[in-house]
């Protein structure tokens, strides 16, 4: 092998003129110059590797940071927030001494290249964020977006993604309790695979990613480090350092959920014995990220001997070891006298664990290889002082025309017969059809605490067996709405997730998000992003639900064509006693159906406009956050006081979609009457926000009406649970059998 001398710090200082392939590593010229300026010399290859991955868009949020600040600046005062933005995941107080951590992340690109492994490792990554906070993971959710349902490539991507999410999550023993599946041609080359996880811990068990206490040991544990997921490092390694290297390392990793399950158990055991001072998972940017973040968040410096990292492939260069994204690894900081016990726990679980360094007095991160010092940096400059861009943004010139193309003016069904046909077509369209072919591939039952899972409005997990304390989570996003108006679209995503949580009887507490957009270098996309963030931050402030963390995924773009701006919002809620939860399914014949909220003519971005007219134009539904809050309070009170037996929020597909779902789930039909002042079409298909339907036992009707009246929430009696058909008086009837065939047959026919 041709050996150039090891590129140590000393060597770098002595050879200032050596050209490094910074451009191939994705750095801009001024970014590279910044590195040189910070170091006062050229970086070593290893340092360049670290800066380049940590300053990438993915790790540094360089395009999005200036906007994301609003989540902090506008954060509402919330007593519930224990740990906010900036840590691996936010932590929320849910009472009785329990804290909950949750977060959503994206794994979009890898899932397109290798659907199974891309999606699987997405679940693996988000779960490690949860463990790193000190929590036991208790559930996962998976908001997904695919290309057109009948496109041949969707048949490759979707089953692989679903099998991967299931394969990993099921094997970890995490119930999958919610998510979304949306089809739209805009996601054809850029499917969105977002994954969220929730964890539960006691307040005193919260852990943070920081290395403090000189002399404390840095322990790397979990899988061996291999040559996977190394983007630029191999360029560095092959072009500059060692030409004999294989020049292309795969950018997709294979996950090992079994290893991760062991990682969960041994980490929790180490937490329980109070052996851990600081902890960090290894995700994007691998050891570069873990070491620089741990060191920069702590009080001291850190010294690492890279030779001690257990390898799967002995030919890896130090740059590759630093950049490898091998899955299922964690890094812990442990006091010297507790190291033996920590290692023993790892051994009990057959997890490889190695001391690779220690916390030092200084403030430098120093990394050694074969006796030479190859990294000597201020870790803050790597982890936190990345470039920040004020990318230009501008409202695209097509936005006005798009909004002017009013969906309310589209031709409407002329006869009852036509209305009936359109309703049937709607409930069987891929986006509105039952997703049970997908969700039945996920374990909902494992851990024995699942109170609600999909297709309920929110997933709900029991936290305490004695008291019945529980948490709920829902994720929502509507790229069509956001395309029409990103500010409102982001608010609608929050409003819907908030409503979904409240509909099950839980009180919304906090928010996480995953912001999926096209290229930030396109001013139109950047405008969409800026508007969406502003909208979400404003809405969170008004609803009193702080953003606790999240993820940004940019460059979801094929050529010039960006995806619809797709902010996905997760809302976490708490319920004092899960026995009071409200399900979607109709429970008893004779119960009265009430529509809560106001219905306007709002068809912009609607499912109806898409399914019947293949149209996207006009304005999305209006947002009224005070109304959402009031609706939420009514739903929560009604559930707590036993006034309603089922409830379902209204969103895409409008009222009829909700009624059909409640009817099919409960196996009981409904007779509906079009209320005064509304035409049947608007009543059934408009997508006005801030609405829900509830089923009220007759004995509770007066009390329920009084409550709504006193609090000023419009509540309209629209029918009764009855029979084995959904009947709209004076219009049409659809038997449950016909509805079931239509609603449940679509997805299997397309994908099975």
């Amino acid at each position, binding site marked *: 092998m041709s050996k150039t001398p090891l590129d140590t710090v000393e060597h770098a200082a002595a050879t200032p003129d050596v050209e490094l392939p910074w451009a191939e590593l994705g750095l801009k010229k001024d970014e590279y110059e910044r590195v040189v300026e910070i170091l006062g010399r050229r970086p070593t290859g290893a340092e360049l590797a670290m800066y380049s991955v940590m300053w990438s868009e993915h790790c540094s949020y360089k395009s999005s940071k200036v906007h994301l600040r609003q989540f902090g600046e506008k954060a509402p005062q919330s007593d519930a927030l224990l740990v906010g933005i900036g840590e691996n995941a936010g932590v929320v107080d849910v009472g009785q001494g329990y804290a909950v951590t949750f977060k959503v992340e994206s794994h979009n690109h890898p899932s397109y290249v290798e659907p199974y492994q891309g999606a699987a490792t997405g679940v693996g990554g988000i779960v490690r964020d949860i463990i790193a906070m000190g929590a036991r993971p208790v559930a996962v959710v998976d908001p997904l977006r695919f290309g057109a349902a009948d496109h041949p490539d969707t048949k490759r991507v979707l089953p692989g993604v679903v099998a991967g999410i299931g394969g990993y999550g099921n094997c970890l023993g995490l119930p999958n309790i919610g998510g979304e599946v949306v089809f739209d041609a805009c996601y054809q080359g850029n499917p969105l695979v977002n994954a969220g996880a929730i964890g539960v811990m006691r307040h005193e068990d919260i852990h943070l990613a920081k290395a403090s206490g000189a002399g404390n040991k840095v322990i790397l544990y979990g899988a061996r480090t291999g040559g996977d997921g190394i983007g630029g490092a191999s360029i560095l390694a092959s072009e500059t350092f060692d030409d004999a290297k294989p020049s292309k390392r795969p950018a997709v990793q294979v996950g090992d959920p079994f290893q991760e*399950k062991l990682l969960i158990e041994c980490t929790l055991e180490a937490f329980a014995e109070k052996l851990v001072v600081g902890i960090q998972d290894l995700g994007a940017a691998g050891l570069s990220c873990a070491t620089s973040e741990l060191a920069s968040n702590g009080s001291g410096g850190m010294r690492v001997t890279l030779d001690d990292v257990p390898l799967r492939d002995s030919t890896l260069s130090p740059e590759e070891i630093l950049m490898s994204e091998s899955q299922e690894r964690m890094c812990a900081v442990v006091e010297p006298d507790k190291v033996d016990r920590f290692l023993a726990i790892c051994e009990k679980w057959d997890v490889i664990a190695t001391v690779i360094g220690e916390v030092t007095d200084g403030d430098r991160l120093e990394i050694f290889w074969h006796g030479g010092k190859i990294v000597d940096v201020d870790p803050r400059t790597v982890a936190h002082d990345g470039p920040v861009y004020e990318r230009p943004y501008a409202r695209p010139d097509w936005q006005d025309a798009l909004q002017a193309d009013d969906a309310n003016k589209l031709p409407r069904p002329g006869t009852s017969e036509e209305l009936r046909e359109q309703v049937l077509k709607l409930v069987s369209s891929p986006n509105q059809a039952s997703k049970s072919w997908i969700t039945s*591939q996920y374990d909902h039952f494992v851990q024995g605490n699942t109170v609600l899972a999909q297709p309920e409005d929110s997933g709900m997990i029991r936290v305490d067996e004695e008291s019945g304390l529980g948490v709920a989570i829902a994720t929502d996003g509507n790229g069509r709405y956001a395309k029409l108006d990103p500010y409102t679209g982001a608010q609608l995503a929050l409003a819907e997730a908030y409503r979904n949580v409240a509909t099950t009887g839980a009180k919304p507490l906090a928010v996480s998000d995953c912001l999926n957009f096209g290229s930030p270098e396109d001013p139109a996309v950047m405008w969409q992003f800026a508007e969406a963030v502003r909208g979400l931050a404003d809405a969170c402030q008004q609803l009193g639900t702080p953003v606790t963390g999240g993820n940004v995924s940019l460059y979801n773009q094929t050529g010039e064509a960006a995806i619809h701006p797709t902010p996905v919002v997760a809302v976490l809620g708490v319920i004092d006693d899960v026995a009071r939860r409200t399900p979607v399914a109709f429970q008893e014949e004779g119960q009265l159906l009430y529509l809560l909220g106001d219905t306007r003519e709002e068809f912009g971005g609607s499912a109806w406009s898409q399914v019947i007219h293949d149209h996207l134009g006009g304005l999305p539904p209006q947002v009224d956050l005070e109304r959402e809050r009031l609706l939420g309070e009514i739903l929560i009170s009604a559930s707590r006081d036993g006034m309603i037996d089922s409830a379902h929020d209204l969103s895409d597909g409008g009222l009829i979609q909700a009624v059909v779902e409640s009817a099919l789930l409960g196996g009981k039909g409904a007779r509906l009457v079009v209320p005064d002042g509304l035409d049947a079409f608007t009543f059934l298909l408009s997508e006005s926000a801030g609405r829900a339907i509830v089923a009220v036992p007759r004995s509770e009707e007066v009390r329920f009406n009084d409550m709504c009246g006193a609090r000023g929430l419009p509540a309209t009696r629209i029918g009764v649970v009855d029979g084995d058909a959904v009947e709209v008086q004076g219009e049409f009837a659809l038997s449950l059998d016909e509805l079931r065939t239509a609603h449940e047959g679509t997805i299997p026919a397309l994908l099975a």
Partner: protein
Amino acid sequence: MTARIGVVTFPGSLDDRDTQRAIRLAGAEPVALWHKDKDLKQVDAVVLPGGFSYGDYLRAGAISRFSPVMETVIEQAKSGMPVLGICNGFQILTEAHLLPGGMLGNDHLHFICRDQKLRVENADTAWTADYEAGQEIHIPLKNMDGRYVADTYTLDRLEAEGRVVFRYLDVNPNGSLRDIAGITNEAGNVVGLMPHPEHATEPLIGTGRTDGLPFFTSILKKLVNA
């Protein structure tokens, strides 16, 4: 005096904690057993819980079957100790040849999670005495490798000897031969099934049914009355 029922944790076991809870709900005392220990801590019966032990790599149950704890479980099972294998536990029991036949990937190639209807065919085993023969129950099912196969001779023999304990009703969720969901050994002390009775023990949780509780009350009564 109550009965002590062991629940083995293998690396990758997932339902060990809920199985312990189900045992507790039935009134017995759950005892955690570890795959590396041969010692069964004087339990009266053992449950091998569901999960993906060793990731189900190689074949479901194939690696766990060689754990130290299984040496003792096999020995004790042969001398009559009640053993229940749920899902992955059932797979381990077939790999260990305590139960005949084998488990393969579902015929539709997907993981399947559903509320499954079953008929109790044999209410005389150590684990099913609190059911009635012919009773129809709903128990959650969730697996990737749930397709029970055996040669015709073995299947005929199982049928003839009444050793098919549960059969799938309405839907055969995985292509199991003769709709077999669970079987027992000749002595009736070892039972394996794919569905998860431990997930059907509390009214609020999961599917909201409690059709799985009789497993745990059956064994409790048998042990306490013994």
